């Protein structure tokens, strides 16, 4: 699913978007950085409640395309600045992690790799 569609169909707020045409083929959820680092698939959207700047390092090393921050939390300023530098899109959700992923499913999101 293209990032553009994800934003439109799942009630997400755009915080910083680099490339809305990018295809998201998989996803991962987790708040422990090393867990995400070790296990997230390529071209993922990452659903989390961590908002500080280190998530950008994880996303860029792991080739995660977009991060959805749940529970209406706000990204740190430095996180947004680093996201710009590293071409990672940032979205914010007013729902919790479970509901956010449920919304993605309802919008027709499919795991399309492997």
């Amino acid at each position: 699913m293209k990032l553009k569609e994800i934003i439109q169909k799942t009630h997400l707020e755009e915080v910083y978007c680099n490339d809305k045409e990018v295809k998201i083929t998989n996803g991962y959820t987790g708040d422990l950085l090393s867990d995400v680092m070790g296990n997230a698939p390529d071209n993922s959207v990452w659903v989390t409640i961590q908002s500080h700047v280190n998530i950008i390092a994880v996303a860029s090393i792991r080739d995660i395309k977009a991060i959805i921050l749940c529970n209406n939390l706000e990204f740190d300023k430095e996180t947004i600045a680093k996201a710009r530098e590293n071409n990672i899109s940032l979205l914010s959700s007013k729902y919790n992690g479970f509901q956010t992923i449920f919304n993605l499913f309802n919008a027709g999101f499919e795991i399309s790799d492997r």
Partner: protein
Amino acid sequence: MFSNSLDELINKLRKYFSYIVVSEIMNQNVFKMKKDRTMWQAKELMRIRKISGVPIVDDSNILIGLVSIEDIIVALENKTIKDKIESHMTKKVVTLSPKENLESVIRKFERYPYGRFPVVTEEKELVGIVTKKDVLRSILERFRMIYVHDERRTKTLERFIEIQEKSLITGEYVKKGHADFAFLINYTDVDMAGMGAAKLKSFLSKKIGDDKLARRISITAYEAEVNVVIHSSSEGFIYCWINEDVIRVRIEDHGKGIENVELALKEGYTTAPDHIRELGFGAGMGLPNMRRYSDKMVVMSEAGKGVVVEMIFYRNGEE
């Protein structure tokens, strides 16, 4: 109470140890900051590192001020905590010179109500910091050193040099000066953790043209780098050597070390404190991830002697 008994002990010992100079007792790993950072960031550094003051330096490491807990309290009260450090730091700082003797250090601790003194050269360059604990530790170390047999000391030193220059996996000599990639890990800023690994990734992608391998290597480097920042309390280095069929990565620090390497290799085992875990670190998966993504790995450490992690990646291997 701790402080009182410490004062008493220092008093008793001062005349025997007054020939000790500041450069011998100071802590050279200073948590410092630049003036363009914010008071909030200074507060975070103090909270995470459990320190009560941060020296502020300019680009050439010249001391220009200090942020103390008092400065932070004032900034919180006046709602200036998000401001740049420059306008709210203490500008008149009492300092020590590296050549000053212990007697004079103790007098300064008595005269001023401060818990720490930055150490600066004549040109005001920041080279260390001295707390009461450093004074006590240096005195205790003196006592212990008297008993160390010469021969034993030489042996230890020789072993140290061997570890420093030899590959832990293949036994070849590795020259750090000839590394294809080297990165100094800034352990004073948790926000910067991962910078070195990200740099290594883009460096490798360009150099070897294998994105998957570059990612695999930088994942391991990230974990090792985060460990240095969170656990070591010392500077560290990331080195990478590219050979025809193998890539070698080595991350080393001279900090606290790992007490039980076997335990640290277990998934889920962590010694990270709560305030670090809140940030999502300390999942107990650092070393396990390194083992998982490298082809060969050796960890060497001893409490108080730093950590060396060396990993090898075969260029034609599969993930």
